[in-house]
């Protein structure tokens, strides 16, 4: 993928994440902070499909943005063909892993496994 395409995704995910995290914070403000972290409330959030979908989207956006940022930092620290490939594929694998792990929590809750 061209670097400009990656950076367009990088900037786009940052802007979208800022907007969605703002919505997320506003939703949390509808109840007390301690109350919002109670076990039942957290499960209820995950079972409310529109909100769960938004959390999933935030997870994807921040994972893409964060791991690409990490890739860029690591590429600047050291250079070399093997190292650069390892960093790029390592960050991609870590991003997929994190998204899969976060999605698993939401899916398991909705399937009644938690």
């Amino acid at each position: 993928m061209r670097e400009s395409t990656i950076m367009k995704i990088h900037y786009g995910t940052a802007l979208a994440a800022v907007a969605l995290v703002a919505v997320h914070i506003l939703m949390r403000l509808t109840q007390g902070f301690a109350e919002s972290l109670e076990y039942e409330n957290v499960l209820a959030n995950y079972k409310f499909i529109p909100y769960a979908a938004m959390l999933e989207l935030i997870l994807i956006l921040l994972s893409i943005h964060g791991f690409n940022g990490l890739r860029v930092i690591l590429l600047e620290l050291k250079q070399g063909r093997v190292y650069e490939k390892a960093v790029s594929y390592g960050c991609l694998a870590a991003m997929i892993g994190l998204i899969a792990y976060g999605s698993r929590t939401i899916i398991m809750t909705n399937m009644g496994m938690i």
Partner: protein
Amino acid sequence: MAQVSSVPKGQTSPTSKSITLRISRFNPEHDESSGFMEFPISYEKWTTVLEAILDVKKHFDHSVAVRYSCRQATCGSCGMIINGKPRLACFTKISELNSNVVTVEPMNNFPIIRDLAVKFEKLFDTHQKIKPYLIRDDTEIQSNEKEFLQSPEEVEQYIQFANCIKCGLCNSACPTMATDSSFVGPQALAQAYRYVADSRDKGKDSRLKIIDDSHGIWRCHFAGSCSQVCPKGVDPAMGIQLLRGYLLGFRS
């Protein structure tokens, strides 16, 4: 390292003042680390750092390695770190530095040949890589029958970037170049913009493809130090941002 203790008699005038010139000495073939030699130098209001170094070569130590040529900020040969900042030695007056000690070191981010002389190969390689010439499909340039006229507004788009003398001070000041040895650098990026913005040029796409690399234009942090140190008033940081506009689709 050694300190030379006396100014040659008969070399000073009644209006001259004196400073200590500290010159970084390093020969990669013999030395493990660099050191400084100090020389007392008398100077006039108009004396440049290059003249002071040449004075040292003439009267104290002829083995000091320094690259220079035109002495008028045109050839771009005498770039060095003067009191911590990348500058042209021929374009920096000692009196402007307001310091009793003037320290000169080789430019950062360049391999050292010896003392103040550095290798320019990578600078010229990256400069060449971005195709620093007008690209056209037609043969009108060879035919010598037609001029490629430009309006003053079209010239204004790139003319400041045409003032680059390839001195390397911008690359020396760039924080990204300090960590990323593969980074194309502000000099080459500014020159890429110079040709991309030229209305006579048709090589925009090929140049943008070259700089759209994992160690290309996107690694610029926009620190702006390249623009601060340019002795010719070129603003590479602005050129880089304008180039990004092309790549992001804001400019065409």
